[in-house]
């Protein structure tokens, strides 16, 4: 990877020099070029491969694989499943996103205790967790599909409304809400442009680009991680993994991306 970065930088410098003679290229375009240069060897593929093995591997007290897990399109159907999540599941009688559903299947199929299934939600230095790999594999099977999240069941509607409330709710020491950064055009943190999630095109592009391999962290980051880190940046209390609040907010954002093309796991700076 480090061979690529200097190369990308060198290309960038060359392009910048050429561009000066013609017309200035925006920082956004340069970042896009950087992503394109890295995208060819996206390490997310390593997580996808590991996730596929884990999906089929017999694990847990019941020594069972997850292959019979119903992700929303019927038991064992992985292709396109992420594009319809979150959704209401009659067996658990709640709205579930992918991570929550995987926890449910680890409990019901593999016999894990709920607290054990939820215990290691995110990887870190020297720590690889099954959840990240499973998320990478399952989301990769929806790449290129159109987001199609339903809002039929009363609990789905309720989750959407709760998610909307959380999105607009301002609190914490900075009196921040999601909407503070994601409710207007052309907002940014340092050089990172922030999507205006009130706009359909931005909402579709943003939701369709997670999970992602974060080059700066060397990790595959799930959507649950994305929300958890947004809460941290807002100085909110920690967003609990697969909590109803996290699923409701995911529901709000996923539903608003309906009609957009899902294109992840992606790669980010």
């Amino acid at each position: 990877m480090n061979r690529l970065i200097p190369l990308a930088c060198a290309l960038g410098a060359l392009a910048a020099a050429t561009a000066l003679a013609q017309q200035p290229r925006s920082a956004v375009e340069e970042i896009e070029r950087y992503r394109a240069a890295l995208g060819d060897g996206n390490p997310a593929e390593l997580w996808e491969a590991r996730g596929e093995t884990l999906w089929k591997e017999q694990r847990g007290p019941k020594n069972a694989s997850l292959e019979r897990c119903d992700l929303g399109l019927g038991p064992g159907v992985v292709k396109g499943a992420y594009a319809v999540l979150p959704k209401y599941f009659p067996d658990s009688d709640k709205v579930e996103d992918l991570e929550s559903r995987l926890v449910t299947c680890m409990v019901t199929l593999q016999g894990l205790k709920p607290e054990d299934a939820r215990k290691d939600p995110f990887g870190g230095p020297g720590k690889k967790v099954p959840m990240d790999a499973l998320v990478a594999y399952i989301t990769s099977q929806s790449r290129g599909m159109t987001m199609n999240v339903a809002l039929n069941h009363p609990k789905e509607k309720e989750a959407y409304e709760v998610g909307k409330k959380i999105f607009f709710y301002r609190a914490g020491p900075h009196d921040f809400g999601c909407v503070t950064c994601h409710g207007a055009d052309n907002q940014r943190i340092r050089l990172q442009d922030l999507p205006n999630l009130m706009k359909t095109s931005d909402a579709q592009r943003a939701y369709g680009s997670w999970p992602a391999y974060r080059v700066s962290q060397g990790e595959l980051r799930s959507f649950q991680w994305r929300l958890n880190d947004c809460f941290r940046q807002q100085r909110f209390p920690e967003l609990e993994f697969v909590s109803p609040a996290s699923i409701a907010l995911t529901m709000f954002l996923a539903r608003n991306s309906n009609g957009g093309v899902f294109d992840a796991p992606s790669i980010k700076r």
Partner: protein
Amino acid sequence: MADPMKIRAAMAGDKVEVKVLMSHEMESGQRKDAKGQTIPAWFIQNVTATHNGRTVLSAEWGPAVAKNPFLSFRFAGGKPGDKVVITWTDNHGDKRTDEATIA
């Protein structure tokens, strides 16, 4: 045991283009953990690529190569259906060999 590599090999004109993703921490030995202890160096030292038993690439790597490295190179003399074998060895002596068929 290290995770498998992802290897793609395809014809690019009259040459074979190989793209390899390796799963490795590539710890530089320069970083410290939360307790202030140095995290020991742990990185891939040697990478070799062979085509029909002939070495087409041999590299010595150091701690400055990033985590989960991506390697891309081209060589002459391959044809579709041939096998390309990649091996890496790290400074712990851990080894990983994977192969791909040229498309």
